[in-house]
């Protein structure tokens, strides 16, 4: 199967990982090797096989619609790198006019 360096760069962008050129090359080699190993899956006939996304399932658990405020919001906000009036500060997001 393999993977090209351009694909590796595209994936890194999608995954929001900074990827210096040199590292991109290493990733391309490593990932290609791993993807080659995966190629054996092709030989398995899965035409009539349902995928397993959960080891097993039962009726969807659902909560009642009740409000239970969390008791320690400050403990959440305390982990924020930067706050202004309880809002989290981030570099400016390209703004809709």
């Amino acid at each position: 199967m393999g993977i090209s360096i351009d694909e590796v760069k595209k994936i890194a962008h999608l995954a929001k990982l900074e990827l210096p050129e040199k590292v991109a090359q290493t990733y391309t080699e490593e990932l290609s090797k791993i993807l080659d190993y995966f190629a054996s899956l092709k030989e398995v006939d899965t035409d009539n096989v349902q995928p397993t996304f959960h080891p097993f399932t039962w009726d969807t658990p659902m909560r009642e619609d009740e409000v239970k405020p969390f008791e320690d919001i400050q403990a959440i906000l305390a982990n924020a790198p930067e706050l202004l009036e309880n809002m989290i500060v981030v570099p400016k997001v390209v703004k809709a006019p």
Partner: protein
Amino acid sequence: MNSLNLNRLTIKRALELLDEGKISSVELTQACLERIKKIDPEVKAYLYVNEEWALEQARLADEKRKAGEHGKLLGIPLAIKDNILIKGHPTTCASKILQNYIAPYDATVIRKLKKEGAVFLGKTNLDEFAMGSSTENSAFFPTKNPWDLERVPGGSSGGSAVAVACRMGLGALGSDTGGSIRQPACFCGVVGMKPTYSLVSRFGLVAFASSLDQIGPFALNIEDTALLLKVISGHDPYDSTSAPREVPSFTQILQENANTKFRVGIPKEYFEHELHPEVAKNIEEMISLLKRLGHEVKEVSLPHTKYAISVYYIIAPAEAASNLARYDGVKYGLRVEGKSLIEMYKKSRAEGFGREVKRRVMLGTYALSAGYYDAFYLKASKVRTLIKQDFLKAFEEVDLILTPVSPTPAFKLGEKTSDPLQMYLSDIFTIPVNLAGLPGLSLPSGFTRESLPLGVQVIGPHFRDDLVLSLGYQIEKELDLETIPPIVKAL
């Protein structure tokens, strides 16, 4: 404190001594803390130890005991893998990206342990975000195997396994996504159990691969393992994948099943792999032992075993790529400033995550991306069905399955770090169990000539954690191994 011989002190025995008033939880906790001071600089099992906090909990436990309370773990000092949240204390996942993160809430297992009066000594080392098989992927330092400091303790829950092996805690919690409890338990000569998927709540366990992750206990023996498992398992309304069913008393079942004869399957495919000769020899001895005990041993077939690694290394990274998207420098964790928001994301994640995590995030993103989803994620999920069906079919013929835990005993530090694929292949016997959601137990089964621990894995049908523990209990009694690492013995 003469009654306190940590090296042979099980949780069960400690509870008796506490109840009899022969020791206090403060003394017990103090003893563990002293042990940590002596040995941990060598083995580096802990990322975080908070003496003051531990002793405070111990004092509280002693007061409760005086007031007549009887929590199932009242006053017992435990170690917790650092990917399980304890409110008000750091949870780093051994990652730089969470280096300064303080948990704002308790994991469900922590709430359950607190309710039963357990004392937390600290948080143990792991492969970053539980991704690894050697604890070498910790962003802070590798943990060492107490049986041979040049070797790995296994992983990803290496810190918890070592903490228990060195008696730096009477028990511990780890998490197991592809063998992360069982393999380090095997490498360190302790008992480790991955329960049936959904038996233990995942709420508050930092997600690696949601459909595979399961929290489980480490202990010195099966009885303690059963006790810890009973406390942490049970339905949790905060986890939609938590099983809505009653959990039996495992410790009681051990006694009831003490002489029960089981039909035990040996999967022939597990022997088609290259096995370390001493591992091969040991598993033969285990088969003989089972026969000697009167169990029926028969060969079973798990034909899709050879695809398990591929399936696992597609599904787990895919889920991980998604689960780890939240570490972005916005609301918590490491933020590396950039010229723009996107740059901040990319720099924070590139600096915050280690090599293996990045590798898996890339792999997982690729497996989920448009155009590759069907060939990778969907295909792997279908083959996963076949792997699960293999087990279900085998369990029509046998009650339990016995396998090695790992193809080799503990390997050397650095031996496999340069080749990720080689590292992945070392999980071949543990991974299928997670893919199928089955319970799997790892218990000591002997030693190599170099005195490295060997372990055997007992696998059971869904929700038959009781049977798995029962067979383990019989093997353990029959073997009666002494599992004290030399570094501990030398104290």
